[in-house]
Each structure stands twice: as C-alpha cells, then as structure tokens.
C-alpha cells in the first residue's frame, strides 16, 4: 500500500509537506501550550481562513496575502495577551469569528460558496503545490535551527519570562520569532489540514507528551516524534478508507493522546503496587 501511495506525486508532496508542517507545529506548540497561548493557534487559523478567502475572491495570490496578514495578527494577539488590558481569550474569540465572517461574506459576494471555501475549512490533500513544499522546507529549517541553537533560551523564556528578562534574554524577540513562525506554519498547514483542525497539530503533540515525560527535553523530542508518526498514520488511514486527510490526522492525534494518557495511568498504578 505504501508503494502505491508513493506512486502519486501529489500524495508524495502532501506527505513531505505535511510531515514538515507537523514537526514545526509540534515544536512551536510545546512552547505555546506551556505558556498558555494555545488559543493563539486557533485564532490565527481563523484569521488565515478569512485572509485566504478574501484573497481568492479578489483574485490575489493566496499565500502572498495571507502570510503577512496572519503574521500581523500574530503580533497583535501576542500584544493583547501580554498587556493584559483585554481578556485575551475573549479577544481571540472575537477576532476568530470576525475573520471567519469576513471570509465567508467575501466569498459569497463573488463566487458563491465554492469547493475552495470548503477545502479551506476542512482541508484538501490536493492543496500542496511544489512551491508550497519548498516553503515548508524553508520553514522547518528555520524552526529546527531555532530549536537546536536557541534551545536553552527557549526553555528559559517558556519556563519563566521574568527571570529570563532579568538575566538579559531578549524575551520580546523570542516571543515575536515564535509568533511569526507559528503564523507561517498555520497558513501553510491549513490548506491541507483545514482551518478548523490546524490548531490541533500545535496542541495535541505537546499535551500528549506532557502526560508521560517529565523533562522539557524529553517533551520536545517526543512531541516531534508523535506529530510525525500521527501524521503518517492519519495519511495512511485516509488513503486506505478514503476519509478526509485533515480529519484522519486529528483522529490519529487523539488516539495517541488517549494511549499516552493510559500509559501514564498504568505507570502510576504499577508504581503504587511497587511501593506497597
């Protein structure tokens, strides 16, 4: 079956692009989830949907418009989360709904609700063009470089912003870099995964790994591995049972989450027996 899958060029592109996106989303996700910024991923995917639909309706280049818009939105969301002036979860919900609405109105005024909109909502396996795959490769190179060379600083900023600031780490710069990379990850990933489901790539691997592993390093490694494995499993299942790719990957992620949860419970139980 695997050889058969690899004989379709579009599937190969989807696999390569998807694996790279999953890896980036998972690594960035560890920091976002631990800093309680998970909602930012969800908000950005909706902004990305709005930007893409408007770009398509107006006949502009979809990625050329949505990447800058989403990067800007990422700055903005980070800012309101940091300043604490407005309840950030409420602000994010408001922005999500507004951009969703803007996207839908723009589409229905021009082309009507076409397959394009539906595929942005729920993802399409056909979405990865060769150019997108190259962008994914560039993005994952950036994320990996960041994590290899600035690993300790990312840890410090994630664990304790005020201490990191006091020891001279440029906390702002790290937050901005992470927000920008997250924004690009979301725009690239949502065409395949769908606006409704892309944030799960950010949140699931980190939450799954946190149940079992007890050091930051192990959580980071495990998140990357879980993300890639779940993506491949989801894609294989999607091919075998002709289910939508995005939804299949999310279900694979859910499966891993439950399995890790069960493993953690069993370990606790065994430890209890051991101690008796």
């Amino acid at each position, binding site marked *: 079956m695997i050889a058969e899958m690899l004989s379709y060029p579009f599937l190969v592109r989807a696999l390569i692009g998807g694996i790279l996106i999953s890896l980036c989303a998972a690594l960035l996700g560890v920091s976002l989830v631990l*800093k309680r910024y998970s909602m930012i991923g969800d908000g950005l995917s909706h902004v990305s949907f709005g930007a893409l639909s408007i770009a398509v309706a107006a006949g502009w280049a979809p990625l050329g418009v949505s990447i800058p818009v989403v990067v800007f939105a990422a700055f903005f969301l980070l800012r309101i989360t940091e300043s604490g002036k407005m309840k950030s979860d409420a602000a994010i919900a408001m922005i999500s709904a507004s951009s969703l609405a803007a996207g839908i109105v723009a589409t229905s005024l021009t082309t009507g609700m076409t397959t394009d909109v539906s595929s942005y909502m729920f993802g399409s396996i056909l979405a990865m063009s060769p150019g997108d795959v190259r962008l994914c490769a560039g993005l994952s190179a950036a994320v990996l470089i960041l994590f290899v060379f600035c690993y300790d600083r990312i840890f*410090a900023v994630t664990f*304790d912003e*005020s201490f990191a600031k006091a020891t*001279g*780490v440029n906390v702002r710069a790290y937050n901005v870099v992470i927000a920008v990379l997250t924004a690009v990850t979301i725009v690239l990933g949502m065409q395949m995964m769908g606006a409704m489901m892309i944030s799960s790539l950010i949140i699931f691997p980190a939450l799954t790994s946190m149940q079992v592993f007890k050091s*930051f390093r192990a959580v980071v490694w495990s998140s990357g591995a879980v993300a890639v494995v779940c993506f491949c499993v989801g894609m294989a299942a999607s091919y075998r049972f002709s289910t939508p790719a995005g939804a299949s990957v999310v279900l694979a992620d859910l499966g891993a989450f439950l399995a890790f949860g069960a493993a953690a419970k069993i370990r606790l139980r065994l430890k209890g027996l051991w101690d008796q």
Partner: protein
Amino acid sequence: MSTLITCSHVDFGYEDHDAVTDLTMEVEEGDYLCVVGANGAGKSTLVKGLLGLLRPTGGSLEVADDLKRTGIGYLPQQTAAQKDFPASVREVVLSGALSRRGRRFFYSREEKAMADSAMERLGIRQLAGRCYRELSGGQQQRALIARALCAAGKLLILDEPVTGLDPQAIQDFYGFIRRLNREEKVAIVMVSHDVANAVGQARKILHLQQKTLFYGSARDYKETRQGREFLGGEEADK
C-alpha cells in the same frame, strides 16, 4: 565592605506616573534588606528597577562593576503556569547559568558543575532528575533559589518568596536564606508581606509607600509608629 547598589533620590515609574519617588538607600555586600509596604506601594516596581528592567525616571542608580559582570540573582513570584511545567530540576537550575554563557550555544562543563553545586548548597541534589511539577512548594522554591544562585553569587532579589508555602516550608526557607547570608555572604533584598518574620530576619528595613516611610535598621523599625502599626497587635502585647 563595598556597596553593591546605591540609589540616591531615585524615581521609578511608568509613562504617566511614578510608582516610587525620591528613594535613597544602598545595598552593601552581605546585606539583608527587607522591603515592606502595602499592596501597590511600589515594591514590585522597585524590584524591576533594581534588576535593570525599568530605567529610573529621576535621580541616580549606581550598580557596582562587580555586579554588572556577574548579574543579580532573582527569584520572581511563581506563576500558575509553572506549577505543572514538565522540566527536571536540573534543567530549571541550569537555566540560571544562561546569562554567564554569553553568545555560546550550549552550556559548558563549568556551568553544569555550578548547577550541581547550587543544588548541593540547597540540599536538593538528590532531586536533580525529578520533575519540577511533582515537587512540594518548598522544594520548588529551593530549585528556583538554586537557579538564582547560578545566575549570581553576590546578590539575591526575592519577590514575595513565602507566598503559598506552608508554615514549615516558610521556616525552612528563612533558615537557608539566613545561612546563605551569614555563611556565604550573599546579600539579600527581599520584598515581603510577611512583615513579622521579615523584621525578625533582616538587618535593614525599607518601608515604602511610594515615598520612603522608613529606612534603617530592623531594630529601630520596631520602635517607629509605622513599624508598630504594620506589625500589629503582636508588638503591643509585649
């Protein structure tokens, strides 16, 4: 004894208002200063100022060259997100050495040895591999102090360190802070709500209410009106 930090007529504040005005004080080597005051009296602003996160809006703040080189150890208030953070104690303590590393990408052997010795001094060496979120409040506190010691050996600034600790852990905490101060000559600046203990422990007291209400020795503070008011009935009974 040399002076680590000298404030003369310093104002600290934000765009529209000064939270601390006309503050004159100094922190000497091996000092033990406790900053007390009501909520919103400018204590946290002062901490930010001393750490260099906030520029003084007036007056002059001088930091000894020694301190500029090694930095200041800081124990921030704990955030809710930290309580269930998946990190080993070693990872947390080692992150204190980040400022010594400069532009290098990885920790050197000396920095790792320093983290080990900091854990040793706080009696948490055996917890090095344990997960931070599984520790008791008191043990988490020690891990954070070990981290601060990795960052700097001369001055520790502690922001509300005993909040959320149980009474036994609070007594332990004051015990090892006193030891660090007396035996290893680490200067301590502590912001605290726990006035009764603070006055018993510290050598000097700074009572802030935007302006300085009192600055002097802990013994004298007990005799002042503010001191008696702040310490409450306990003093009146004696």
